[in-house]
């Protein structure tokens, strides 16, 4: 085809020496920001609200911490099921992933539920859902903190 530009021409269009240093600095900054975003996300997952607190978003930090804490306390007080790693079916495994989303609060929930779960009543079933909601909500908050650090969200 006559309009087609040869590949060699497009790749050699910009001399490497001219664009190297600002491009490299930008790349380095991008990598540094990505690493920081991962650390913030891990902190947000481990302790609900910590990621936003590190970003000095105090309102969001307080809300993330209190909503996740309330859901965990309610779920555990209602004797909801806290799934363990040894889940037998797909639902138990998914439940474990959702419960792990609360980070360190997973162990708080286990400590609060001294009598173990009781899903023979509807109350325990509601508690299971509240615990899973806490985990998913915390994962969403961690993702938000990650995106904010990468300057994709306000």
């Amino acid at each position, binding site marked *: 085809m006559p309009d087609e530009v040869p590949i060699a021409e497009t790749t050699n269009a910009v001399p490497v020496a001219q664009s190297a240093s600002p491009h490299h600095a930008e790349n380095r900054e991008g990598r540094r920001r990505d690493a920081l975003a991962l650390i913030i996300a891990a902190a947000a997952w481990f302790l609900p609200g910590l990621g936003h607190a590190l970003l000095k978003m105090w309102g969001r930090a307080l*809300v993330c911490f209190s*909503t996740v804490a*309330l859901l965990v306390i309610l779920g555990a007080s*209602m*004797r909801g099921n806290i799934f363990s790693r040894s889940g037998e079916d797909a639902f138990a495994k998914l439940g474990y992933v959702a419960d792990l989303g609360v980070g360190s609060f997973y162990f708080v929930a286990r400590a609060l539920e001294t009598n173990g779960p009781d899903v023979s009543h*509807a109350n325990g079933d509601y508690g299971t859902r509240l615990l899973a*909601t806490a985990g998913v*909500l915390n994962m969403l908050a961690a993702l*938000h903190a990650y995106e904010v650090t990468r300057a994709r969200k306000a």
Partner: protein
Amino acid sequence: MTPPHEFRLSHFQAMVIFALLVSVAFGFLSRRGSYQRARYILWSFILFLLIGVGIGWAMYPFSH
């Protein structure tokens, strides 16, 4: 026997608490400014309740 510290809620009460907490978290994460947040939280809370009750009624014929 129910332990003394066990918290008991009806289905509706559990749904209201769920809707309220999730709406507050969504509002704070997705909006900036008090007015925008309050509007979003209220709207989201009402929709959670309406859709929850709506789905409950939609399932009612199948329970008999």
